[in-house]
């Protein structure tokens, strides 16, 4: 299925971090719809349109997924694996956005076929920059496969 380019699924448990992404996104690509879920289970529910995410309008297929690794209930890595294992969902690019710079997390993520791995910067401007570039790249430049 061809996902609407302007929908990003943000899987992030920290409200502060979610707010940061939202604000930055708001500045660079105000047209983007940011769908925010707070844990891995909710993320999968969203993607599979179940457990309250049945309405396609309320839960449009995202153009890509911004995924934090350390999530309650279902871990970020699990979510990544699940997405990439499912042929229906594997096409959706997954970008990991996490505080962890640990090599083994990076390695593991790539083994699970992550599309990109980003480490949250501890600096406001940098973070802004990153989100901007991020959106610029994935939404403006990147071509999504058509359905």
């Amino acid at each position, binding site marked *: 299925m061809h996902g609407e380019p302007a929908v990003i699924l943000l899987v992030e448990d920290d*409200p*502060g971090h979610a707010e*940061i992404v939202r604000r930055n996104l708001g500045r660079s690509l105000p047209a983007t719809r940011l769908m925010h879920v*707070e844990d891995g289970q909710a993320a999968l529910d969203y993607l599979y349109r179940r457990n309250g995410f049945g309405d396609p309008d309320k839960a449009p297929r995202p153009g890509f997924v911004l995924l934090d690794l350390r999530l309650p209930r279902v871990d970020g890595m699990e979510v990544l694996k699940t997405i990439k294992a499912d042929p229906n969902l594997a096409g959706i690019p997954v970008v990991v956005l996490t505080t*962890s710079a640990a090599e083994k997390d990076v390695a593991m993520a790539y083994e699970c076929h992550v599309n990109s791995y980003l480490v949250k910067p*501890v600096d406001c401007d940098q973070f802004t920059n990153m989100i901007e570039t991020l959106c610029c790249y994935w939404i403006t430049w990147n071509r999504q496969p058509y359905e």
Partner: protein
Amino acid sequence: MVSAILFFLSIGLQLSAAVTALLLIRTTGRKVAWILLSLAMLLMAWRRMVTLVALFSSGETIPFDLPEYIALMISALMLLGVLRIGAYFRSIRMVGEERRKTEQALRESEIQFRAVFESTRDAVAVSKNGVHVFANPAYLKLFGYESLDKLAGTSILDCIAPSCHREIVQNIQRRKAGEKVSSFYETRGRKTDGTEFDFEINVSTYDLHGETYTLANVRDITERKWTDEAIRKSEEQYRTLMEQAADGIFLANQEGRYIDVNTSGCRLLGYTREEILQMTMRDVTTLTSDNPLRMAELREGKSLLSEREMIRKDGTLVPVEISAKMLSDGRFQGIVRDITERRQAEEALTNREHFVQRVLGTTPNLIYIYDLMEHRNVYANREVFDFLGYTAEQVQAMGSQLFTNILHPDDAAHVGQHHACFITAGDSDMLEVTYRMKRSDGQWRWLHSRDVLFARDNDGKPSQLLGTTEDITERRQAEDALREKNAEMERFTYTASHDLRSPLVTLKTFLGFLQEDFAAKDAERVAKDMDFMRTAANKMGVLLDELLEMSRVGRVVTDPVRVTFRELVDEAMAAVAGRIAEKKMDVRVEEVDVVLFGDRPRLAEIWQNLIENAVKYMGDQEASCIEVGAESNEKETIFFVRDNGMGIALRYKDKVFGLFEKLDVKSEGTGLGLALVKRIVELNNGRIWFESEGAGKGTCFKFTLPDAILN
């Protein structure tokens, strides 16, 4: 009348004389003379009697006048004469007889004397005025004279060695002068052939016919002198040996009194020789009932070797070894050796032996000597099987399959290799090997052996190993646990640093936003920004607190005390009281009669966290209820905290206790609580788990605290 009597008397006398004369015939043996005399007397007596009768019958008075008197006197004289002659003849006769007897006795004694004189081996000679008169055959033989003729008449000095002449001559002169001279002395003699020899001589004198004869009894003492000399030499040798001996030599008489001792003996006991000669064996020896003097056995001729203690002058005891025997002359000889040093050496040796045995016996390790040819231990300080807990029966039952059975199959190869390595090993090489063996309870124990070469055979090939085996199972387990702990520590640090960064990101980013919003004078946004920042800062604070708490859990901060279950639960409840009241929860605490002993604040934290959790995750029940209690079975006591709240899906059963894990993002807390609880429970050697039938079905946390329970 008187004259009649006188008449009769004279007759009587004549008759008597006649009878006597007859009697004398017998005595003297001269018949004729006496018969004639007696006849004469008888005749005279008869005539008188006739006269007397005639006078009587005629009635004339008997005249007794001078002639009669003369006749009477003559009769008396005649009688006397006869008697006298008789006596004279008798005495002559007696003398003759005596002389005969004496001659006889003399003859007999001469025979006897001659027999003795001739046959005695003692040399006897008689001399007069220094000249030999006669000598017995022994004398002749001794001095080498062929016969008495050759000797008789020679000077006695011929038989004396010239060197002694003067002395002998002096003796003779002095004896002559009447001085007291020894009659028994030794001197040197000379034989006819000139050889000289020593003899002893006993001299006596007797007088005969007015002459003084000297009787000399001579005995050749050459042999005796040799013997004496030999004895003297032997005594001298003995003396020398005795004095030179390092051991003490004591000589005692039959009563046990010391009659001699050498210098070493004196030194041994600290007495002078004089002092020792005053003492008996009993004075210086300690005697016990099982170690008596055994003189009877010595008298039988036995040699005895015994150990005992002797008493020195200063009162101290010295341990000695005595070699005792009775000498041929009845003296007891004891050779006494001071064995103080030997005793000390023996004691040191025994002590060392004992020490070694103690060490070998108490070390928990196995020490053994393994024979490479026979493939078995020829010595072990304890049974290998005892080390691994097998009984003798079990060992027997396994028979020759023993090692195959108990050695771990994976290790068989390199154990064999280890032994093979010794073929080429040097003397000081120590080789180590680690392997597993099955203990009698089935558990595999890790063993570590260190072996060195112990002996080589005659060709120089290694034949035996000396080794020690240690059970390192616990050590390995500790090492594993340590490794595990380190890994956990790493995870912890990693997680902690990671999770601290998260709020930091928020803080810094919102600081930036704050700047913009403040510049834009957007008060609402500024407030929101500051909210986010505050939350993040708080989160960091709480996180740091709990981190500190976590690290403290490993160390005991307070002294262990006794505390009851009830007290702990009450304390926990007090901490959560507000929340409970707020949510109007019903908390039921069972009556549990359990006393705990440990770190009270830590123990309280368990219930505090669990009850807090129960409250937090209660959800929106109507009749929310928490039960706190304990169940005991024979093995252990299980504490529980049960709620009828949200419940936990079983697939989260491990995650729940993980660090910083929260199942519900929106809930309070940092996710450290249960990890903390788990840590505390594990420190008390217990375990913790939960039972829940799933979401909405309530949860029951259960845990044990074996180390903290006081029975």
